[in-house]
């Protein structure tokens, strides 16, 4: 009888304590996106998320792509998925290569670079777990031939949108910083350069297709006095035949942005 009373009292105490405790709540929302990436092909990936539980903190390359769906190998980089990141070293654009080593993770590959004077030097990539990648920046994923056709990017959904990645003159690897597929003509592009109406002078977006080819789209601003057919294209991304581009980029997929020059 005494024992039953003790147990009842203990349960009542726990119930009271639980009732008195403030619930733990948070605004953190974890994001997980599927990105199409065909086996044996190369795709541009961008991560629309920030580091978990650390809003505005830099995300490290090693943490960006989920291991789910990726192909690793114990010793052969050519049979494993690879990450390729473009870096600007004193104005010189180069690639850092990483491969997914079994039980190790993303491992840097030392590469050799030939200079204009014929000399060579080796490039050692920054460790993937120390390589910060800003939201909206892109990098390449080269799939192993034995891989599937999708990979997953993960992180925490950012509370601050939109993202404004710095785009410099020349080639940039970028992406749209939200966790949703986006039509390039539904985005507000402030500062995009439409040139003089000839797309040779315009900013360009290049999207990787599933067959590994690049599709080119150009930003168009119609000069005054041009026929009405061109005025309808004003402020839009267009195809090479000067028709409106209807292109939806999946969440997590990036693209090349070729910046001609500032407006």
């Amino acid at each position, binding site marked *: 009888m005494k024992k039953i009373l003790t147990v009842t009292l203990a349960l009542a105490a726990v119930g009271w304590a639980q009732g008195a405790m403030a619930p733990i709540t948070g605004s953190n929302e974890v994001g997980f996106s599927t990105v199409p990436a065909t086996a044996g092909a190369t795709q541009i990936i961008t991560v629309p998320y920030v580091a978990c539980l650390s809003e505005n903190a830099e995300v490290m390359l090693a943490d960006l792509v989920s291991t789910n769906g990726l192909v690793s190998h114990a010793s052969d980089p050519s049979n494993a998925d690879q990450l390729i990141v473009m870096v600007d070293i004193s104005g010189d654009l180069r690639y850092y290569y990483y491969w997914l080593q079994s039980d190790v993770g993303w491992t840097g590959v030392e590469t050799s670079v030939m200079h204009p004077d014929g000399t060579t030097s080796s490039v050692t990539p920054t460790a993937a777990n120390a390589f910060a990648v800003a939201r909206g920046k892109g990098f390449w994923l080269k799939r192993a031939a034995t891989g599937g056709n999708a990979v997953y990017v993960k992180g925490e959904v950012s509370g601050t949108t939109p993202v404004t990645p710095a785009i410099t003159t020349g080639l940039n690897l970028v992406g749209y910083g939200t966790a949703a597929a986006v039509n390039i003509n539904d985005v507000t592009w402030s500062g995009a350069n439409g040139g003089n*109406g000839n797309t040779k002078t315009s900013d360009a977006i290049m999207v990787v297709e599933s067959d590994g080819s690049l599709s080119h789209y150009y930003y168009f601003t119609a000069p005054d006095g041009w026929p009405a057919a*061109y005025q309808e294209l004003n402020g839009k991304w267009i195809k090479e035949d*000067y028709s409106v581009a209807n292109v939806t980029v999946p969440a997590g997929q990036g693209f090349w942005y070729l910046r001609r020059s500032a407006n």
Partner: protein
Amino acid sequence: MKKFLGLTFVVTLFAAVSAQAVVIHWAVSCPNPEEGVSAQLVYVATGQPPTYTATGTPPIPGNGANIGAVVSGLAVSPAGIGRQSSVDTETRTQGSYYIVLFNSDKSQFKYSTESLAYSDTDAITREILAPATGTFDPACGFTAWANVPEPGSLALLALGMATLALRRKKRV
């Protein structure tokens, strides 16, 4: 054995690279082109200008090959022909690319006085990791309009030549 493996790797790599298609970027930044003008990128193995022996849709050069589709319509804007990306699936080890313009009924042509070498790395790209940022653009540098020979006149010319040759043979 090690040397063999190394050689195999190099050969495999070369085969992989050489089998890749190339993308040639070109444009014509010549303002106010004539109405109805269309354009075609052409490859010529000798590097010499393209020649036409018969009409077609589009006309096919006798000494080369058409690369990509004919460009017309809105792409021929008041500021010239916008930037194009034409894919050449053949592996080239020599020769040049020319831009050929055709009049509205494709009975006349003119070609760029400047050509693009097959080995150019500014306007031609082989891989998506390093897309070309340049453009082959001869601006307004084109020859005068010339007639594309029609099949009928070609047949007459051939008949005339054959008759001439036969008469010479008889004299001998």
